[in-house]
């Protein structure tokens, strides 16, 4: 068996363990926290509808299949069984909507924005980073340093707010409320696609501003480190063209740690999405999460949270597998 496959296999096992533990966490968080969510709900119901507590519990059981007397282990196994079969439960607010449907509706929007933003900042950021390392003291340096300060020091929601005020409200260049214009017909048609792109511009720009500077600066520093390596000066001495050295020596090697960083960046977008999507009123996972939190829709919360965790795990896994394939030095230990 090749060493690379062993490394990847190890990663997959770790991912599965993490996945299981996240399920435990998300389950325990909702059910076993002090001031139990269900308890609170029952009290609320009893009070508002003026019914005895016991009856409130009965209604809860009927509505959400929640049974307070069920031992935790049994309840967890039921939950686990549901999750394994792809059933994340039903929204507490709207009995007709399953959490799966919510995710199915929200995910494309989040992914649409996240993938484009990640792609732009990864490609441009790395390109700029290598350039800055190779051609020292160019005009890019202060610009990218400024951008990286912004991404470190300015919270994503501030960036989002500024973009909304400037580009949408004052200049009127981009729309910001929603994911597409109500004038177009959703579906596979060009107007819809263009409108979606139009509405996605500002959210994407927000994420790019958050990611680009950091990406460029970290690429710059790894590139500088690579350029100090002997093989780069040796390549110069061998009379290789500058473009070849930059492409096959500096970029090819400096990009390796950036690939693992991709998962981190994706996590950053996911984390920021609750705020950014809410501000843009963009119907992605983040906005639904915020809404569910606001309305205390616990089953939807649980489902969305678990789904985000799965996304993170998968992103990490992909980054690690990609790394194992890109770096021939991955040989024995991962």
């Amino acid at each position, binding site marked *: 068996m090749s060493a690379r496959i062993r490394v990847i296999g190890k990663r997959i096992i*770790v991912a599965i*363990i*993490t996945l299981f*533990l*996240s399920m435990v*966490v998300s389950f325990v*968080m909702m059910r076993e*926290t002090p*001031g139990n*969510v269900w308890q609170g709900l029952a009290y609320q119901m009893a009070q508002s509808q003026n019914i005895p507590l016991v009856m409130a519990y009965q209604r809860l059981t009927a509505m959400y299949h929640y049974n307070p007397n069920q031992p935790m282990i049994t309840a967890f196994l039921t939950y686990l069984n549901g999750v394994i079969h792809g059933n994340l439960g039903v929204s507490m607010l709207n009995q007709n909507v399953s959490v799966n449907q919510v995710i199915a509706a929200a995910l494309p929007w989040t992914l649409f924005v996240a993938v484009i933003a990640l792609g732009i900042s990864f490609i441009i950021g790395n390109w700029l980073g290598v350039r800055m390392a190779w051609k020292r003291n160019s005009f890019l340096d202060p610009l990218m340093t400024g951008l990286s*300060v912004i991404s*470190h*020091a*300015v*919270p994503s*929601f*501030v960036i989002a*707010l*500024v973009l*909304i*005020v400037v580009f949408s*409200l004052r200049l009127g260049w981009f729309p910001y409320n929603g994911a597409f214009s109500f004038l177009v017909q959703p579906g596979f048609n060009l107007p819809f696609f263009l409108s979606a792109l139009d509405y996605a511009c500002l959210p994407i720009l927000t994420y790019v501003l958050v990611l680009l500077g950091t990406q460029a600066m970290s690429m710059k520093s790894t590139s500088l480190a690579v350029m100090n390596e002997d093989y780069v000066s040796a390549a110069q001495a061998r009379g290789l063209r500058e473009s070849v050295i930059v492409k096959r020596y500096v970029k090819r090697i400096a990009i390796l740690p950036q690939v693992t960083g991709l998962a981190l960046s994706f*996590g950053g977008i*996911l*984390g*920021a999405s*609750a*705020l950014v999507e*809410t*501000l843009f009123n963009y119907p992605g996972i983040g906005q639904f*999460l*915020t809404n569910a*939190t*606001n309305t*205390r829709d616990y089953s939807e*919360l649980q489902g*969305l*949270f678990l789904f*985000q*965790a799965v*996304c*993170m*795990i998968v992103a*990490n896994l992909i980054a690690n597998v990609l790394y194992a394939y890109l770096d021939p030095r991955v040989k024995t230990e991962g």
Partner: protein
Amino acid sequence: MSVVVRFFTTIYYNKKALIGFILVVFFVLMALIGPLFFHFSTAIDYSARLDPPSFAHPLGTDFAGRDTLTEIVIGSQQVLSVAFWAALISLSAGVVIGILAGFIGGVVDEILMIIINLVLTIPSFSLNLILAAIFSVTSPVAFGLLLSVTAWAPLALGVRAQILSLRERDYITVARLMGLGKGYILTRELLPNIVSYLTINFIQSASGAVQASVGIMLLGLVPYSVTNWGQMLNIAINQNGGLSNPSGVYYMLSPILALTLFTFGCFLFANGIDDFFNPRLRTS
């Protein structure tokens, strides 16, 4: 040269760190002694609502005609104390767990690493949101604790990595060979080498906690407190049409400015402080 003098010399020669230091000190002072000079009054004066900056109200007024500057100053106390507690708790937890994992090693390390990796994969802002909603925290300590639930993990990972690499250094081996105990090695040989890392991370954690706490407040998930910067933003955006109403823009801008200046100061200060701890960079 005494430590204090050396600190100020280093800061003086590093202009970015100096700006950062001044900003951070400015906000800390605002939080500590500001409330002595500014008194928040609940009196409502709708005739003066959402005024632009003037001599009487340097930052303008809020939706109820109250002085925005006063709200920012009073609010800084809450924002900064949440940040302080969050940074303190997550750093302490990170240091203890990181040192346990790195210094003891073996099974302890393996178990702790599984936990750390798990926490690292949890989408932390979402978790913070949910916890804030479930627990309805009110005190700064509780809020800080809530924000630390995941924030300790990267710190622990960093501390562990530092300890692991330091542990293999020859000078640690020599100290062991001289029969100097674990306590000596930890306090005299290891800690001086990670103080710089810890300080930088304390500042960065505080900055991160401010961003997260204001973000949560912005979504309106923590009990109402009209002076909190995040709550101010929430009101500005959701209730006063701060986005669409031109006169609301000053009210919205004030907390944004305060927040950004503080995090910006933290960033500059944290980046420059390494010079102070590194003996190679000491000016003789």
